[in-house]
């Protein structure tokens, strides 16, 4: 046991010392998710936090530490498309959950609630996710009991500075759930939403002082929080399931062409795939949801992702929190039901980066981008496979989590000693 402890400590020291290191990932099949496509037997050069280049194996500079990826699969780090990472530890009956907000006088419409203040990089969920290849994620409030789900953020799952982008997006829901929160009917939800947007648009980008005398539907805090949304600088995620609601979302975008609309769920989206594509609205979905959980999800099918992609819709996959690591399985099942394999991988990486406007830095293996890289023992969408190495912001992480420690404690349990002393 002591040997194990020493080796773990050394590993930690070692990885701490590799900060700003030069690393070459050598060989294997590299899916760049860039214009370069998928290449074999090349080397990915990482200098510090960023990717330097993809070069021939015989062109690796001498000062690069090499990681052998022969027979492996190399991909960009996975990006959780919609999570509550950093905002909750145990959701049910276990204390504070920052992903759930009671009605707030400060932000009656929920738009000004801001998770960037709530993120906890020490959450045990983060190592659990990152050792399985999830290197960054969009995270936001799930319940506000108000129209908007606050200001979501993009976080990195590496160590150090976790906040990639605050106020990265906001979210509303126009499905049955959203209607239930809005006086119980879409007939109330939509006019209120329309009025709110009109009110914010009328500000022409000008903020209100929080103490300003203002007689609109929204208060100044919510108005200010929505200025970037109506300008299209911040994506507006809209949860919708049924055809009629998706049509309303498309119509909303036509009325407010500046809005950067993203559909969330779009369970019956396949029935309107062309219209969604023409409206240039990307979709974040759970491809495994194929049951009519409510009357607005009757046409649910696992073929949804593939049919949307076939029509030209950009699809993103990865809606989960504790088990965001299963996003590869979700994508694999979308592939088993019609999505092309490379679109399945894109749905976990570059498409999500594009949706959140972080694709200059994330989502593909290209010179100049942040070095979030995963080395897999095989096809990442195969359920029996797993990452062997994960690099976040250029740093090779320890493949350790609370769960691996629990595993090792009980796998190697010494019956002569209470488990509390085995660490």
């Amino acid at each position, binding site marked *: 046991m002591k040997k194990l402890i020493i080796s773990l400590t050394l590993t930690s020291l070692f990885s701490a010392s590799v900060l700003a290191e030069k690393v070459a990932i050598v060989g294997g099949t590299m899916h760049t998710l860039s214009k370069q496509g998928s290449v074999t037997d090349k080397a990915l050069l990482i200098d510090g936090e960023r990717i330097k280049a993809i070069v021939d194996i015989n062109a690796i500079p001498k000062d690069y530490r090499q990681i052998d990826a022969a027979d492996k699969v190399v991909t960009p780090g996975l990006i959780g498309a919609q999570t509550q990472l950093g905002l909750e*530890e*145990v*959701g*049910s*009956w*276990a204390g504070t959950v920052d992903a759930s907000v009671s009605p707030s006088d400060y932000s009656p419409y929920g738009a000004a609630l801001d998770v960037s203040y709530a993120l906890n990089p020490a959450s045990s*969920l983060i190592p*659990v996710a990152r050792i399985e290849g999830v290197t960054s994620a969009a995270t936001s409030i799930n319940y506000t009991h108000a129209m908007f789900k606050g200001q979501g953020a993009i976080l990195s799952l590496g160590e150090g500075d976790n906040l990639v982008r605050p106020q990265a997006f906001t979210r509303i829901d126009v499905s049955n759930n959203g209607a239930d929160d809005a006086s119980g009917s879409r007939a109330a939800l939509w006019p209120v939403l329309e009025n709110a947007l009109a009110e914010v648009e009328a500000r022409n980008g000008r903020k209100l002082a929080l103490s300003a005398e203002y007689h609109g539907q929204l208060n100044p805090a919510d108005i200010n929080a929505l200025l970037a949304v109506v300008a299209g600088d911040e994506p507006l995620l809209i949860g919708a399931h*049924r*055809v009629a609601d998706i049509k309303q979302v498309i119509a909303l975008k036509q009325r407010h062409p500046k809005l950067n609309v993203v559909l969330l769920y779009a369970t*019956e989206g396949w*029935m309107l795939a062309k219209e969604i594509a023409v409206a240039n609205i990307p979709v974040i979905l759970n491809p*495994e*949801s*194929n*049951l*009519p*959980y*409510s*009357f607005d*999800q*009757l*046409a*649910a*099918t*696992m*073929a949804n992702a593939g049919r949307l992609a076939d029509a030209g819709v950009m699809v993103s996959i990865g809606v989960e929190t*504790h*088990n965001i*690591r*299963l996003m590869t*399985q979700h994508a*694999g*099942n979308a*592939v*088993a*039901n019609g999505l092309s394999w490379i679109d399945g991988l894109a749905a976990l990486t570059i498409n999500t980066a594009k949706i959140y406007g972080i694709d200059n830095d994330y989502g593909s293996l290209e010179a100049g981008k942040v070095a979030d890289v995963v080395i897999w023992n095989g096809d990442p*969408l*195969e*359920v*029996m*496979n*797993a990452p062997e190495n994960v690099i976040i912001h250029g740093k090779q992480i320890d493949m350790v989590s609370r*769960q*691996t420690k*629990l*595993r090792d404690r*009980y*796998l190697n349990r010494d019956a002569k000693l209470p*488990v509390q002393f085995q660490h």
Partner: protein
Amino acid sequence: MFKTSLKSPVLLGTLVVATGLLSGCGDDTKPQQAPFVDINQNPFPSTYKALPSQKIAFTHVNLLDGLGGQIANATLLMADGKIQQLGESLEIPDGYTVIDGKDKWLTPGIIDVHSHLGVYASPSTGSHSDGNEATNPVTAQVWSEHSVWPQDPGFGRALAGGVTVLQILPGSANLVGGRSVTVKNLPNRTVQDMKFPDAPYGLKMACGENPKRVYGKKGGPSTRMGNVAGYRQAWADAQDYQRSWDKYTEEYKAGKNPKAPKRDLRLETLAGALKGDIKVHMHCYRADDMGTMMDVMKEFGYQITSFQHAVEAYKIADKLAENKVCSAMWADWWGFKMEAYDGIRENIAMVDKAGACAIVHSDSDLGIQRLNQEAAKALGDGQRAGINISKAHAWQWLSSNPAKSLGIFDKTGSLEVGKNADLVLWSTDPFSTYAQAEKVYIDGGLAFDRDDPSRWPVSDFELGQPGEGDSK
């Protein structure tokens, strides 16, 4: 221990004859006996009818027998609803339709021991919320089959995932939630149409957070110790009830004319569990909760057939093996409540490694569609942790171990001559994400065929709705 199972017509017949003889002797010091009170143990009999059985020879197929065996390039003959023969390079007798299984895999049908299909049906409206009789911590008197809606579209989805048999349990709000029912995944008009003939009943019990959360402000229990007091008192009441019936039977046998005890449906089910006629399946996450329950089990002399969820089974796998309690587990669910916080991906493989009975379960209308993938994840994680398990061995988690825990292994759960032809033809290795169940047979009848939309089940609810008849 004398059993008043009271289901034996032989016993009743003997008694009637004996009574006749006694009265024939004209011995009027003996009281005239009232008819013996015999309790019908099967008031809701199965009306299951198999689909027309096909006579098929699967050839060149990669076969997992569900017992740990694998045969490459196998042939399996199926007729009259049963497996007739299997092995390498068999002669194919006349009359068999040949299905070439080259590059395909053949396995026993998947058996899910933990489903709430039908009792928490889709759409998940309040009016479909029929899984928890959350009105009292001990509701042994309720039977899940009385809540099952056969039109739940979830049954068809599970079938497309290769599930041929499932146990439908009450929820986990109560210490004792009620009886479960084992069904064939071939819903028709009533629940009786899908009941697995002669399958024993199960009893759902629950440890830990749920009962104390539900009853904490409704008169208790509000703590784990309150939970345990609740189980023990319920068992003690059941013992007392059983003794009253035993006394009745003994006195009747002795020629007396005792008054039969009043039936108590709650205690009748609990007494059935104590006797072993009803199998106990207990929702339990934490190692310490399971440890306590194995002592309660010994105190009252019953057997816990399985711990359901058993998220911390890996911590006490040796004790589970020793006490012959199965663990029905997820591959990787964790963290959604405190008692699930220590979930690890190697749980299933570590339980298996300890020689304990491991089962992959779903407790989910989505998970049940991909139990093969759940087993695959557990296998991959186990192998990476250095636990040497083969795919053939792992398939036991999906068919034979669940069949044993449900008491139906004599009929299904493995590919053996004479067993029910419950089997799945997979498009490729079922431990791959991309594998799909191409054909699913229940008792030799074709219940699902991915290539034939006429064999895609469409529930009444789905008729006339958007997406009717679509591939799901």
